[in-house]
């Protein structure tokens, strides 16, 4: 571009690299602090000036999170709720997304816009009647008490993603299947699904992340220790007088890792989901 050739370490001293370095440091610093603090002893946690590297390195926080604070239970609950809800979202979302992309249903536009608006509604708007509904069903403090609402709240976005994805699949593919006498369900399963796989990854990772991080509903619906999910569990660690930050951060590191790995593996699809227009935070 600018004609000059740079050699050696001078190649890295330019505006772009310096700016990148600053961005990386600002993004990573709080993460570093989270990880480092999880290895500190309670005394080191409260040290002033703060220890920038834990000394001594202690794993007591990790064992404490699992032994004293039932973090294992919360982790299990989060996994069950997020996995089942994601599976349901993908099944129902594929069916609905296919119908909205391909069949000549009436009112498709209205349905799509309604779904989009619903997916943006703050959950505080529905929490009280939802609580009542689940209470009448006897579903408070149960897995289905969270799985069903999570499925419903994540379906609109998944339907959007999958519909947009299926619109891009050539119609000829399924017509070939139909001529061969395959039933619609069969066509969807063996022709559309494999081609829509990236869309399924995107919808799946978004749904899983949303279920993994959701707080308000989890706080209201499942408040018994055996059914708490990670966010609620972590928020209720300790007593009003004492916040055990070390234990909280140890649990946090364990909670960040699964989703972090998932996001890194499926990075491409997360980015394509974020950028497909139907954006959700």
């Amino acid at each position: 571009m600018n004609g000059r050739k740079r050699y050696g370490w001078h190649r890295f001293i330019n505006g772009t690299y310096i700016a990148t370095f600053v961005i990386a440091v600002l993004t990573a610093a709080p993460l570093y602090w989270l990880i480092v603090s999880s290895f500190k002893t309670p005394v080191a946690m409260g040290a002033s000036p703060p220890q920038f590297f834990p000394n001594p390195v202690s794993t007591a926080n990790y064992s404490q999170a699992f032994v004293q604070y039932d973090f294992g239970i919360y982790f299990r609950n989060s996994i069950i709720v997020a996995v089942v809800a994601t599976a349901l979202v993908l099944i129902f979302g594929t069916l609905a997304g296919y119908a909205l992309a391909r069949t000549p249903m009436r009112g498709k536009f209205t349905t799509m816009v309604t779904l989009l608006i619903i997916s943006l509604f703050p959950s505080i708007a529905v929490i009280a009647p939802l609580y009542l509904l689940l209470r009448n069903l006897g579903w408070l403090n149960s897995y289905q008490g969270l799985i069903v609402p999570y499925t419903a709240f994540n379906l609109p976005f998944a339907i959007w993603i999958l519909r947009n994805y299926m619109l891009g699949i050539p119609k000829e593919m399924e017509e070939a299947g139909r001529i061969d006498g395959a039933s619609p369900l069969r066509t969807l399963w063996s022709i559309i699904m494999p081609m829509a796989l990236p869309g399924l990854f995107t919808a799946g990772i978004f749904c899983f992340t949303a279920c993994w991080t959701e707080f308000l509903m989890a706080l209201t619906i499942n408040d018994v220790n055996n059914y708490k999910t990670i966010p609620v569990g972590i928020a209720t660690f300790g007593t009003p007088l004492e916040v055990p930050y070390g234990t909280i951060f140890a649990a946090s590191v364990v909670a960040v890792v699964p989703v972090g790995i998932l996001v890194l593996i499926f990075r491409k699809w997360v980015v394509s989901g974020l950028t497909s227009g139907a954006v959700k935070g």
Partner: protein
Amino acid sequence: MTTTTAPEHAPAHPRPVGRPETQRKKMARMGWLFSAPALIIIAAVTIFPIIYSVAMSLSNVTVTGNGFSLNGFTWSNYSLVLQNGTWHYALSFTLIYTFITVAVEVVFGTCIALVLQRLTRGRGWMMALLLIPWSMITVINAELWQYIFQGTYGVATYLFGLNNVLGTPTPAIIALMIADIWKTTPFVAIIVLSGLVMISGDLYEAAEVDGSSGWSTFWRITVPLLRPTLSLAVLFRVLQAFGLFDLPYVMTNGGPGTATTSLAILGYNAMFKNLDFGTGAAVASTTALLVLLGCLISLRAFKVQVGDQEPS
């Protein structure tokens, strides 16, 4: 928009069975059948409760042994809410918070995207790093920043010589915004980057040939072409920030005093702490109404989203 009057697209391939019209009706029925499970579950868990919530906000609600019952129509929940100073404060706090955080996130996000666009090596790693805050549980984010700003041994308190940040209203609000901006700016940056990548390089070359400076190229080419991407991101962020709950609930518990009490926290406390479901529902319904208003105002943007691939 009925099936019979809709312009019939000539099928590219012959349909296997029946006349096109019969086939079409059959397909439409199948479409509803396929969407039914999704639509029913969405209706049951979202639309029904929203309607019920509005009904609740317009009734005298009494808490009974198993939940609550609605007795008679009243406006009093709304008049109570609309005259309440705490509600006024929560509304303006939520609005200001939303405005500032989204504005900062968009500016920073655009800057980061512009840098990443120029980055030839290691862009994948940067994207990976930026996705971590996005995927993090907000509760963890809240605990982390609470610790960073802790009054006596917090690292920010030490490094910047701060004093009791979370115990003083304005600094507490700023701390909350910093935590939000740290978590959400990367998300905006990735969206903007995708928009930047789609802008054709030819345009930039043409601008350079015409002697346009970097700054004016940015304002006259990059920004206008980025607008659709940007406006949608802003819209979603605004509507989402309006439901602000997790971060202040954990990081500052709405305090000090009511300094960081958002509309959602106010509604939650009314319903689940004071068991005042009528007022809580009124707060929740007004919040929902404001979001709906925002949606309707931007319906045009949504229409663009649904796209013109609407065959019938």
